[in-house]
């Protein structure tokens, strides 16, 4: 087992865990596809990073910030639902991304390449994952309340816009880290599937978010091991592992 493999495994575990945690808030918000959309928004950034030989997560993050800013701007200017705005930004980015990403690296941009995870990148992934975890942990009850009813949350003095912004920024950070592991097309699945599985299995919040985190970690762990054993692409391997857990959860649904 070489050390590079270990770097990617450890990064995957941290990112998978925090993606699951974020996902547990996304489902209840009926925003399940935001992670997906943001993954695509990252694509032009990945393309530029590849062109100029920069780290893809860095490029992705810059474009995610731009994407969030645009969505926020459109939201102020129009009264369209969030999903529609996200949709517009998402397809536009995808189109631009395809034009920018150099063809030989298209596969890497879309499905990730864990063989590029360096020691430094692992450290960065661990630090940011823990940071996101701490931040989300703080706003978790407020977000849940806002999901239940915005009015109720407001009547408790919760600043919904602020909490939403923090949440969106956390997702963007996670997506920027995640594109390296599973690529821009599949990063959304890292968020959605573990949480969906956990929901099938849980009867209270604690089980739900712990389950999401554990399933996110297990998906990345087994997915990357599967990649190691069989040589199939790591990104799809992780997502399929995750999907398998989901299918099994349907049997035990409570």
């Amino acid at each position: 087992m070489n050390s590079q493999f270990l770097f990617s495994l450890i990064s995957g575990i941290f990112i998978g865990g925090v993606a699951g945690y974020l996902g547990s808030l996304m489902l209840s918000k009926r925003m399940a596809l935001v992670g997906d959309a943001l993954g695509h928004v990252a694509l032009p950034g990945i393309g530029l990073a590849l062109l100029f030989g920069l780290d893809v997560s860095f490029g992705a993050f810059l474009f995610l910030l731009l994407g969030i800013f645009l969505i926020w701007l459109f939201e102020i200017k129009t009264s369209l639902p969030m999903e529609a705005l996200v949709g517009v930004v998402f397809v536009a980015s995808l189109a631009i991304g395809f034009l920018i990403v150099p063809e030989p690296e298209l596969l890497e941009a879309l499905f990730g390449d864990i063989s590029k995870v360096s020691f430094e990148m692992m450290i960065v992934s661990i630090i940011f994952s823990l940071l996101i975890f701490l931040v989300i942990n703080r706003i978790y009850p407020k977000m849940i309340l806002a999901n239940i009813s915005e009015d109720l949350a407001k009547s408790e003095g919760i600043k919904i816009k602020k909490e939403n912004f923090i949440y969106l920024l956390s997702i963007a950070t996670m997506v920027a880290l995640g594109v390296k592991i599973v690529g821009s097309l599949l990063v959304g699945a890292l968020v959605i599937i573990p949480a969906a599985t956990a929901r099938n299995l849980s009867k209270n919040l604690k089980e739900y978010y712990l389950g999401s985190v554990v399933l996110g970690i297990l998906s990345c762990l087994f997915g990357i091991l599967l990649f190691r054993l069989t040589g199939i692409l790591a990104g799809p391997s992780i997502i399929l592992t995750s999907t398998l857990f989901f299918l099994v959860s349907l049997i035990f649904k409570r």
Partner: protein
Amino acid sequence: MGNIILKVEDLNVESEGERILDNLSFEVKEGEVLTILGPNGAGKTVLLKTLLGILPYKGKIEWTSPTQGRGLPLHGKTSRPDHPKKIKIGYVPQRLPFIKDIPMSVGEFFKLKVSSEKEVKEILNSIGLKDYNPPTASSHSSFYSEWASNILAKKIGDLSSGQFQRILVGWAMVGNPQVLLFDEPTTGIDISGQESIYELLEKLRKERNLTILLVTHDLSIVYKLATNCLCLNKKMLCYSVPKELTSERLSQLYGGKIKFYQHSHE
């Protein structure tokens, strides 16, 4: 009853260029039960939200904290810094359509609002959920703690609508508010369930000297529970004691002929 707890003067609320509330002025005294009546779209919910401070408005809304020395536990973290007099308002919204989608126990729902376990148990007690008998109510040491832990562990989605409504009322009571705002508290509950919700309100009002503002379509409540009623259809059409609420006034309010017992929910 005594001191004025809420004073509203020339209240105007607009949304997207449309006037929703037009020049409302009224007062509510401590310990009163004010029911707010009106047809759909009359601005009842908007009025409650405006009073809560979550919608922008023009005019004056003045909450005055009632008789201080009742030894209410003042929580360090007050949730509404925008109310300088620190009146505590509990709010029960009209519908919570998403809550049953979220895997959450009753206890966790209470924990979203910071509160001690002791307070939660007191509240469960006063909303009458001790009548809930766990299937294994046998000869255990403490019956009290058994039902309490049982209901607290229950999934919100598994509650009956009557139980859920009680939980919402209880949730609004966390932190010992002096005022309760209720938005159609009995939508979707059968008649005996409705009765018990109103009995509960009356009980809480007496126990805790609450002032209650209640939006309802249920005219029988107005006659039973209310000390005052406000008829609203964008403008204030009447403000009176319930017995002055004649069929004439109601026809004027809802349009068409209405007798109070012919009321139906959508």
